[in-house]
């Protein structure tokens, strides 16, 4: 366990010292600040705009960070040969993969915390400066804590994206891994459509294939409750828990697959 901790902390330290990551987070925070200005242009809808834009920025920049660090870390270790020194130490390849993943998730968590903090600061400022009459028209308070449900699911989704990126990076180049990860993320958002494919096709084989893909590919659309929280619609805790458990199970499968691939690999 300590070994995993050392690997994870090292990944985190490497990532936070990488200036590219700072640029992404700073850009996301600036975008959220700018959403305040955009909100001023839309009378009555300002708070929804800020909530919408903020969650979209957290999800988009979180995705960029997850893909960016997920595809590069293992590949970089192999390509630059830093893995040679590391794997000669008392650490197994499985510990290496899981430790790397834990470090990536830690990096992601800190970056998301910064973005969510900035978002809530903008919302808090908005809540404090708006007139009571305008505030009364809102469906939920500016800093409505139930919005954290969407943040939690975005975080689980990004953990899953990171696991996908890490899995691909165990055997392919960063460019290919990025393409495959983003491709899977896009398909995963339309996954629900695959389930109902049989209603629009006549071929049973195509219907079975679509059904198979539905079960095989991760269902990223399940993690998206942004609309509900912005419009103060209920998101049951049971849904939150089952979706998080689905994400955790998928992540575990991907890590097992990544370890299986990585454990057989020759580092020429």
């Amino acid at each position, binding site marked *: 366990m300590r070994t995993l901790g050392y690997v994870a902390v090292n990944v985190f330290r490497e990532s936070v010292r990488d200036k590219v990551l700072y640029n992404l987070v700073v850009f996301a925070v600036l975008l959220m600040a700018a959403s305040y200005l955009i909100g001023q242009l839309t009378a009555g809808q300002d708070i929804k705009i800020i909530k919408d834009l903020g969650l979209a920025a957290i999800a988009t920049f979180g995705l960029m960070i997850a893909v960016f660090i997920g595809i590069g870390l293992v590949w970089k270790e192999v390509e630059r040969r830093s893995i040679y*020194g590391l794997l000669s130490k008392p650490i197994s390849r499985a510990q290496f993969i899981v430790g790397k993943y834990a470090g990536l998730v830690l990096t992601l968590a800190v970056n998301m915390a910064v973005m969510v903090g900035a978002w809530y600061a903008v919302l808090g400022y908005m809540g404090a400066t708006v007139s009571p009459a305008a505030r009364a028209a809102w469906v939920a308070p500016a800093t409505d804590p139930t919005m954290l449900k969407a943040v939690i699911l975005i975080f689980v989704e990004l953990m899953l994206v990171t696991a996908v990126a890490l899995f691909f990076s165990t055997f392919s180049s960063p460019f290919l891994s990025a393409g495959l990860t983003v491709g899977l993320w896009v398909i995963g958002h339309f996954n629900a459509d695959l389930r109902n494919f049989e209603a629009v096709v006549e071929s049973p084989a195509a219907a079975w294939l679509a059904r198979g893909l539905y079960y095989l590919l991760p269902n990223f659309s399940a993690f998206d409750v942004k609309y509900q929280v912005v419009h103060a619609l209920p998101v049951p805790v049971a849904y939150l828990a089952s979706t998080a458990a689905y994400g955790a199970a998928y992540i575990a499968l991907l890590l097992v697959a990544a370890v299986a691939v990585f454990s057989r690999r020759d580092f020429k």
Partner: protein
Amino acid sequence: MDAIRTEQLTKHYPIGFWRPRPYVALHPLTLAVEPGEVFGFLGPNGAGKTTTLKLLMQLVFPTAGFAEILGRPVGDAATKRRIGYLPENPYFYDHLTAEELLAYFAGLFGYRGADRRTRAARLLDEVGIGAERRMQLRKFSKGMVQRVGIAQALVNEPDVVFFDEPMSGLDPLGRRDIRELILRLRARGCTVFFSSHVLSDAEALCSRVAILAGGRLVATGRLSEIHALEARGWDLVVSGLSPHVLEPLARSGRVLQATDIGHDRYALELPVTEEPHALLTELAPAGVRLVSVQPLRDSLEDYFVRQVGAATKDRGLGTA
């Protein structure tokens, strides 16, 4: 028990995508290294040295055969705690400092807290990294990275250490430091297995060597045991030798070559069958005095070039 043992250790790599053909990176290699030895693993680029080291570190898996370190199969977790490894042209994490890297690696061996930091500091002192230890590694020169690489290989006070081209990238001073370090490791009973194509390092440090060429082992043994390195004559410098004493020696073949080097001195080349001590005793009444004597032998360099040339010719392109 041998410190390192390989038995028919073989590695093929597939070449080509559609119809892969095997490329033989290492032909069956059987080798044993005794505990406490400094063992030189010599060969030109592409000889299979790094492949062998990677097999021993389980960075690549063998096609056939097996390898053991300290009596246990390579990759064994307990064995990993007792070995150190310097990869060829090492590269570490850009954004870590040398201190952080060593503390990180020390942590993987189970060292905690202050012990990690003091261990890191002591090793960095030992390899000559001063105030730079707090700089990020991406700002280090090649030689400094090499020194950090050597330090990280020793972080656990290993019983067996593997150095892949340890002198690479080092200036003469650095090479001297590393030679002294290897001798200190030998003095404390550590087995050192190092690959090199710098033969003077092997001559200065190794008790035994193996020579690899074209993926094959072409020679192994103590330097003195390798036949071609045995004395093929004697080189003497003497004083007080007059031409009338020299002339019958040259005629009878007891002196193969004589060169007047001035100041009443001659450089003589004797055949290996002529015992220098006996000859000097015989010539002493004529006023001949010994200035210096040394055996004439092929350098390891000459031997190496000959062996490698022959192996490369035999092997063709090395495909199976």
